[in-house]
């Protein structure tokens, strides 16, 4: 039987818009639970997944739960790497200014507030995927 590494790198790939389907919300539920397992965790937002991070989501009119605030809380759970694909934003007429600010407090730097969102191009996103051990797709 093969040896298990003590720590694995988990990547959550988010490619779907929120609300039209439940995948964004149920992905977030896995991320929250997974944060307790002391693995390395990164999130990738590409294709329609970038809509999950839109600032100013207001679900009052559709009667659904607005879960967008949860992304901002992930920094407290040591989930601090949000890779967002530039080309996906551009195709959708979006720029990083349309996204909610997601930050974390860096305990190694006097608790300075630092951005969790890391803009990458498509080639860099391919490298992010290849650098992880376990890929969960939503």
């Amino acid at each position, binding site marked *: 039987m093969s040896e298990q590494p003590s720590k694995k790198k988990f990547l959550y790939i988010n*490619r*779907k*818009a*929120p*609300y*039209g*389907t439940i995948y964004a919300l149920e992905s977030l539920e896995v991320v929250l639970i997974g944060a307790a397992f002391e693995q390395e965790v990164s999130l990738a937002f590409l*294709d*329609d997944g970038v*809509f999950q991070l*839109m*600032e*100013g*989501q*207001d*679900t*009052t*009119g*559709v009667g*659904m739960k*607005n879960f*967008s605030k949860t992304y901002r809380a992930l920094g407290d759970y040591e989930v601090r790497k949000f890779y967002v694909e530039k080309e996906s934003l551009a*195709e*959708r*007429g*979006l720029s990083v200014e*349309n996204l909610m600010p997601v930050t974390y407090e860096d305990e190694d730097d006097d608790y300075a507030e630092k951005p969790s969102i890391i803009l990458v191009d498509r080639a860099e996103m391919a490298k992010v995927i290849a650098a992880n051990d376990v890929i969960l797709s939503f």
Partner: protein
Amino acid sequence: MSTLHTVNKSPFERSSLASCLAHVAQGDAVLLIEDGVTGARRGSSFAEALHAKSPVCAIYILAPDLAARGMKAEDVIEGAKFVDYGGFVDLVAEKTRVVAWL
């Protein structure tokens, strides 16, 4: 005797909006609902194709779905009209038939 076409998927993910636009008749209306509203985003790669259809058929957007996805009226292509669920009902009543592009 015209048709209301509803599209509920993002044109960046699925071909349903493109297929819908290829099958509309003069005087029809297209209503974007659910994830379909993302297709109306100004400056997106789909905006021009959608806007090009406006002389043929009116483009409507379900406003509550737009708001849920963090977008405002000024974020979508020019000429698109907004309805709430009541306006959706009125559109269905005004047109002769409804085609859901699922």
